[in-house]
């Protein structure tokens, strides 16, 4: 598989605090790659830099051979690298369907003026968007709630909505920020299958930040581990599970006295 | 040069007090008290009434201003702001309310105090003349000192008393303060009353120097906003800096630019807009967004 995205020596400093230090790794096309690490490891900051919502202090992110770091966020989104948000970030007073329709606007063929005057192209766009929205919602198993106001949805559906919005832009790379957060076992399994089918059936490369270890091990092709802003390991789930540094990072160092 | 400094300190101290009141209210309730200028005017008129008309000793008249505004502030918070904040879907409603209250207070001032400019007899005669390098009437110096004292007292209150700590907690995080047992409703009221009182106190102090009239409310509010914007909304030190900076800018501007007419404030405004474009959170404000 070819390399789609490269994180090259990305560093982020906030004043004296180093959130990320010279992180480098590659993401292959069509893979599911997870970024894990204890709290405060710098995972979300890294994601924000990849989607260019935060500037890097040094280093760059290359996507399809082009630098995308430090560009305006909407430009990166237009290039096909789209992120979802950790907090339940949605369009509060839009319905599920409306949100997914709005999210497709990038693919509109008619101009803004065309929409204002109600041109034929504009009308065709709207029909296409609504059709695609319905299709997408069905794919994600959200058809029943498509007319619900986003603010009325339970947590699990909100996460799905976030993914729906991200998917509606027709991305090549989807950055999911803690998609399984706050979910029970069943909901997590559902989401895992969903994310997997997003990659399988829609050919999207997926990157995740997550804390839910079983889910991560289940779903990832490869994993990158961060701790205190540094990359400490990279590899397949089984490699990571047996990696000493990773175990140490999560459990703390071995306690000689207890002899464990 | 020293004259400009002296004028700057004098103006700065007054302005800092006004800014403090406004920023306190903003910190507590995220509301821009549009009526702040009107509260200042009311303070001036109350002192005028007690000291100028009824011959009550000056300090007592000041106290009356403080009390009046504190009560007014408390009532406004308790019966108007608190319910609107709770009942509204949008935060703009409180801004709307503040505007309405500003209009209301203007009307009240008109009816109770009339539209004439009022002044009071000087509280201290004589002028300090230091070698002609600094010329400042004694009463201004006194007022300046009183203002500085009040600011120090206010900071002391905020830092070292239980009330002050509760207010600071409330300003930082409403929910956390509640969880720590702070009676959020009561302290919101106290905080607003305190902010109003500060405005009234300055009004009372300045009526002895510049007098007071109905029309001063609006422009004073705008100056207050500017100071808060310079220093950073919701930050105490920011308010003080904002007041001082505006005071100095005014002093410098008036001294150097008077020949060009009234462009001092125009320049101040324009610089403010440029400054905010570069640093929207003000000097000490927390970065947001």
């Amino acid at each position, binding site marked *: 598989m070819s390399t789609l995205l490269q994180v090259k020596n990305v560093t982020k400093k906030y004043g004296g605090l180093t959130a990320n230090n010279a992180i480098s790794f590659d993401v292959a096309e069509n893979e599911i790659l997870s970024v894990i690490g204890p709290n405060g490891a710098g995972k979300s900051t890294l994601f924000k830099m990849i989607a260019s919502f935060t500037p890097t202090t040094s280093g760059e992110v290359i996507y399809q051979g082009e630098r995308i770091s430090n560009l305006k966020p*909407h430009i990166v989104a237009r290039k096909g690298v789209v992120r979802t948000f950790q907090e339940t970030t949605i369009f509060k007073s839009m319905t599920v369907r409306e949100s997914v329709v709005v999210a497709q606007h990038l693919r509109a063929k008619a101009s803004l003026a065309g929409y204002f005057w109600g041109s034929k192209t504009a009308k065709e766009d709207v029909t296409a968007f609504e059709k695609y929205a319905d299709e997408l919602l069905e794919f994600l198993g959200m058809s029943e709630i498509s007319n619900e106001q986003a603010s009325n949805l339970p947590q699990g559906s909100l996460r799905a909505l976030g993914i729906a919005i991200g998917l509606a*832009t027709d991305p090549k790379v989807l950055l999911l920020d803690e998609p399984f957060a706050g979910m029970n076992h069943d909901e997590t399994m559902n989401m895992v299958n969903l994310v997997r089918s997003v990659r399988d059936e829609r050919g999207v490369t997926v990157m995740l930040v997550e804390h839910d270890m079983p889910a991560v091990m289940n779903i990832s092709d490869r994993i990158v581990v961060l701790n205190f802003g540094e990359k400490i390991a990279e590899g397949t789930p089984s490699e990571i599970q047996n990696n000493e540094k990773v175990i140490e990072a999560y459990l703390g160092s071995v306690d000689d006295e207890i002899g464990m | 040069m020293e004259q400009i400094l002296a004028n700057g300190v004098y103006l700065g101290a007054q302005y800092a007090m006004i800014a403090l009141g406004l920023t306190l209210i903003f910190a507590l309730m995220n509301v*821009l008290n549009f009526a702040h200028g009107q509260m200042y005017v009311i303070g001036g008129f109350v002192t005028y009434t007690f000291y100028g008309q009824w011959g009550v000793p000056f300090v007592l008249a000041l106290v009356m201003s403080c009390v009046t505004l504190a009560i007014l502030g408390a009532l406004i918070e308790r019966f108007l702001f608190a319910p609107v904040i709770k009942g509204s879907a949008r935060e703009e409603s409180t801004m709307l309310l503040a505007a309405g209250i500003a209009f*209301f207070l203007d009307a009240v001032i*008109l009816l109770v105090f009339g539209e004439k400019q009022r002044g009071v007899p000087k509280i201290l005669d004589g002028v300090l003349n230091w070698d002609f390098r600094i010329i400042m009437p004694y009463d201004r110096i006194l007022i300046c000192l009183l203002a500085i004292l009040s600011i120090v007292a206010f900071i002391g209150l905020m830092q070292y008393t239980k009330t002050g700590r509760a207010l600071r907690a409330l300003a930082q995080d409403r929910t956390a303060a509640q969880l720590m047992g702070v009676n959020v409703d009561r302290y919101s009221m106290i905080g607003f009353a305190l902010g109003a009182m500060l405005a009234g106190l300055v009004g009372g102090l300045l009526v002895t120097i510049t007098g007071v009239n109905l029309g001063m409310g609006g422009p004073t509010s*705008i100056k207050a906003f500017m100071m808060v914007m310079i220093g950073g909304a919701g930050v105490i030190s920011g308010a003080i800096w904002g007041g001082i900076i505006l005071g100095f800018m005014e002093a410098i501007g008036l001294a150097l630019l008077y020949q060009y007419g009234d*462009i001092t404030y125009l320049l101040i405004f324009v610089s*403010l807009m440029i400054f905010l474009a570069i640093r929207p959170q003000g000097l000490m404000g927390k970065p947001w967004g």
Partner: protein
Amino acid sequence: MLGFTSKQLIGVGIFLFMIFIGVPLIIGATGRWDFYFTLTSVALLAIASAGVWLTFYIGRINIGQGAFALIGAYVSAILVVKAGWSFWISLPAAGLFAAIVAILIGMPILRLRGVYFAMITLVLTQVVTLTALALPITNGASGISNIPLPSGISVFGIPILPDFAGMENTKLAFYYTACIIMILTYAALYRLVNSRLGHLCRSMQQNEELASSIGVNISYIRIVIFAISSFFGGLGGAMFGSIAQSVYPSSFQVADSVNFMLNCFLGGLGYVFGPMLGTLVLYFGWDLLFEFGKYQMLIYSTILIIIIRFLPNGLLSIRFGKGGDK
């Protein structure tokens, strides 16, 4: 037709009838000619308020429309008086100039949000007033007076618009003009809100970051919307100058900016026609209270406070609940 329900079309029809035929009849019958001025003012202020409403649509509280109204008034006055232009051409020119100023100022300040943006727009109004006082071209404190009434327009000798100076009833003419512009403004607003641009604005209003993440160029759209809002402000201001036949630095002040905001809030920010209703209620209310002399402001502000206290979501929320997009 046109995708509206018959109920909506009837509503619009009645509204238009009232404005163009009903009102003149009523005024003629009751002899209250001063109402023409009142209603004309309402129409023009509603145009400016529409601009403020639009800025709110991208999530910014705009208390600076007075600045753009003043700019528009001055530009039109200067063009007519000093450059001899026809009023009808100076009108869009005034709007355009205001829009350009908005773009220039908007670039730095539109990143600010919430109260910060509100505060700086408040300052803006004051700045424009002071500038008007200071510039020679605006005649400083004396302002520009004796502005001639709008001249007629004829194309190839065929009169399209009559010359106002030769009219018997200029009040009626101004009234009709103001109403037409107001209707056009709100029609444009309605269309915009229901178009893709409107969707993008709504997405920005609700969550700027999320909008960014789906590729919305938020800085660009903010500036475009702010420019359109200010265009409306300039338009309203220019017409006002024409009616009053004079423009002074005090023609539009901070209080006016605040009033435009009030009009929007009162009418309800969720409704396109909110500002129209809000302006009508507030302005008419203010005018009607004139009889109370010095108690006017007291009663007015008391009512205002009561309304805000008990209807914090605006007047239209009585019928429609917390907010919609019609």
